[in-house]
């Protein structure tokens, strides 16, 4: 995977035997041991590893939960409570899984934002970025269907509202909705197919993750300077350098995860989901899981008709558009410089984008009334303007700061004669910072 020049040489007889027949150890060695990574990666770059860990954790806890779960509307809620009460460590499994979904999304948002900040989507990494967008879409579908499974009030009404979006699509909308629901309203067939898909999609995510990592290992990682690797002094071996840094990132992330699981396991959930689904009783406010709230705010921001498009379809288009726009980011950004570190104006607009996205999330949790609607409209406008106006225009008019000639130069400049450049260089030198 790493540029075709493998440094793997099996030492044992069995290793040589294996290597001549199916060189899996060689693949692993080249991908995760000798694979060169830029020496200046910071902790924002550990989230890829954290996400792989979270995917594995979700699949493992999910499989065990599925052994105890009953996907039938008359049993689902009780079976989840049986897991919480009677299954050995069932409460732990379920809280790990439900909070794990939130942590997965926190990690993916940091990962995406890191990509946007350092211009990780720019040539030749367009496909890498798009594969990431596909993973994110699959995650959203998986998370949504998973939230339906406990068959609480928010499960039921969330599913009703979200599948209702599809009816806004002209001509085929109703047909799509009925296909999703397996009927005319959310009921047993819906639960059955959502469970089947919730079990399937994570494995599809794992498949796309393999492609994502493959694409990454062909083009190599970006780094905070945004300058491509030019020489051997720019890189270090994946193991031990990136491995140990990723491990530290994972364990710190794990601490946050554990804090939520053991001390505030229901903080990120909605109390109404501890009430069994009731198709005759609509909750006062139907809100999706926190990780969809910005998109929910965008959906509800479109309260006006645009020509032949009514507000409902307009909202749905805006919501899907807000995700679809991500796929075009590699071509929307016209800047020659990758990293925001050298783009003072882009840096400002980027952080505004982050604040705006969080603000949209908060608006998504508010009822769609009064000032909240106007605020959501302004925020939605900035969301789209960031991608469709700021990104293309800023790349043309912005004067970037002076770029270093290489990663090595940037590192040396930062350290000012601290530790030596090459990892295999002098041995007795003072430790550099973290």
């Amino acid at each position, binding site marked *: 995977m790493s540029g075709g020049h493998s440094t793997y040489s099996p030492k044992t007889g069995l290793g040589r035997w294996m290597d001549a027949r199916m060189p899996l150890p060689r693949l692993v060695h080249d991908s995760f041991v000798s694979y060169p990574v830029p*020496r*200046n*990666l910071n902790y924002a770059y550990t989230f890829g590893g954290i996400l792989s860990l979270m995917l594995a954790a979700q699949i493992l806890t999910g499989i065990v939960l599925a052994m105890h779960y009953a996907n039938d509307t008359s049993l689902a809620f*009780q079976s989840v*409570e049986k897991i*919480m*009460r009677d299954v050995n460590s069932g*409460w*732990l499994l379920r*809280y790990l899984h439900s909070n794990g979904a939130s942590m997965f999304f926190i990690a993916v948002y940091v990962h995406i934002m890191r990509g946007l900040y350092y211009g990780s989507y720019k040539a030749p990494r367009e496909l890498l970025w798009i594969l990431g967008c596909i993973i994110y879409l699959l995650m959203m579908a998986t998370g949504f269907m998973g939230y339906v499974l406990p068959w609480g009030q928010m499960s039921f009404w969330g599913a009703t509202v979200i599948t209702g979006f599809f009816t806004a699509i002209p001509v085929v909308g109703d047909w799509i909705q009925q296909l999703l629901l397996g009927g005319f309203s959310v009921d047993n067939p819906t639960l059955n197919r959502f469970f089947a898909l919730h079990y399937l999609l994570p494995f599809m995510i794992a498949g796309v993750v393999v492609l994502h990592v493959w694409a990454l290992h062909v083009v190599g990682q970006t780094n905070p300077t945004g300058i491509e690797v030019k020489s051997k002094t720019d890189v*270090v071996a994946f193991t*031990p*350098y990136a491995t*140990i*840094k990723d491990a*530290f990132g994972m*364990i*710190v992330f*794990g*601490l946050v995860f*554990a*804090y939520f*699981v*053991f*001390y*505030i*396991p*229901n*903080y990120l959930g909605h*109390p*109404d989901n*501890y*009430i*069994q689904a009731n198709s005759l009783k609509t909750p*006062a406010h139907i809100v999706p899981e926190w990780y969809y709230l910005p998109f929910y705010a965008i959906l509800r921001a479109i309260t006006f008709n645009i020509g032949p498009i009514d507000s409902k379809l307009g909202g749905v288009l805006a919501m899907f558009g807000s995700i679809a726009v991500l796929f075009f980011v590699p071509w929307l950004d016209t800047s020659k410089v990758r990293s925001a570190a050298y783009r003072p*104006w882009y840096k400002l607009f980027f952080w*505004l984008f982050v604040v705006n996205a969080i*603000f949209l999330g*908060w608006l998504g949790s*508010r009822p769609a009334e*009064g*000032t*909240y609607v*106007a*605020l959501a409209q*302004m925020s939605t406008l*900035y969301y789209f303007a960031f991608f469709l106006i700021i990104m293309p225009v800023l790349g043309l008019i912005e004067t970037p700061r002076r770029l270093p000639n290489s990663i090595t130069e940037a*590192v040396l400049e*930062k*350290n000012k004669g*601290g*530790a*030596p*450049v090459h*990892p295999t*260089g002098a*041995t007795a*030198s003072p*430790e*550099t910072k973290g």
Partner: protein
Amino acid sequence: MKKILNGLAAFGLVMAGTFGAALAAEEGHNAAEPTHFPILHPAQEKWTFAGPFGTYDRAQLQRGLKVYKEVCSACHSMNLVAFRTLQDLGYSEAQVKAFAAEYEVQDGPNAEGEMFTRKATPNDHFPSPFANDAAAAAANNGAVPPDMSLLAKARSVERGFPTFIFDIFTQYAEGGPDYIHALLNGYDQQPPAGMEIAEGTHYNPYFINGKSLAMAKPISDGQVTYDDGAPQTVDQYSRDVAAFLMWAAEPHLEIRKQTGFRVMVFMLLFAGLIYLTKRKVWANVAH
């Protein structure tokens, strides 16, 4: 570029202004015609099970069970809770058996194909006071009394910004018990002048879904006799039953927090070791 920056600043100011206005609009509602519920937010009470080392007070849970049994259970089911789990409250196996035997449950069909009733055993769950939801609604002015098994986790008043951020660090997770306590003590308040209360409902400013609810004041001072000397007041009853309902909703809370402490200590030490290893590995590499 200056223009963009100025525009941006103006935009930010407008945002902040409208944001403030939105908050004010939500707060300032008409006293007689409120639009946001609950009218009053529950006070934050002290609970033994709060915080990272929280544990249930067994005596309190036993008193809460007594309140549930003598008062709440007349209308509210608790059908996810099995009698056997009452051993968590500090009762012996024999006591639980005797407690269960005070209830009758339907069983069957027997060899003749007949349904029959028998005394409950520890493996049975608390039986429902009504045969079905329709019967429950018919007996209660159309409103089905909610099942109480998960009530303490199914009710929580929104905390609002910025409190909900502080709640992460204070580990506030007692919104349910606080709500139950506040609701049970809120019946004696009088509705503001001009407020219309629907026939057959009862004003309570703490009710999460409106200005009044179908349940009348369920408990009064001295109604349940405590044999451990605890005060026989509505305030005490509501604290005890709220704690009991928290246990019913989250029976493994103590083991969860205890396990959590061990996990956190282990992971902190592990993180420290990994960090030192990382420093060692990177010591000779400028980065």
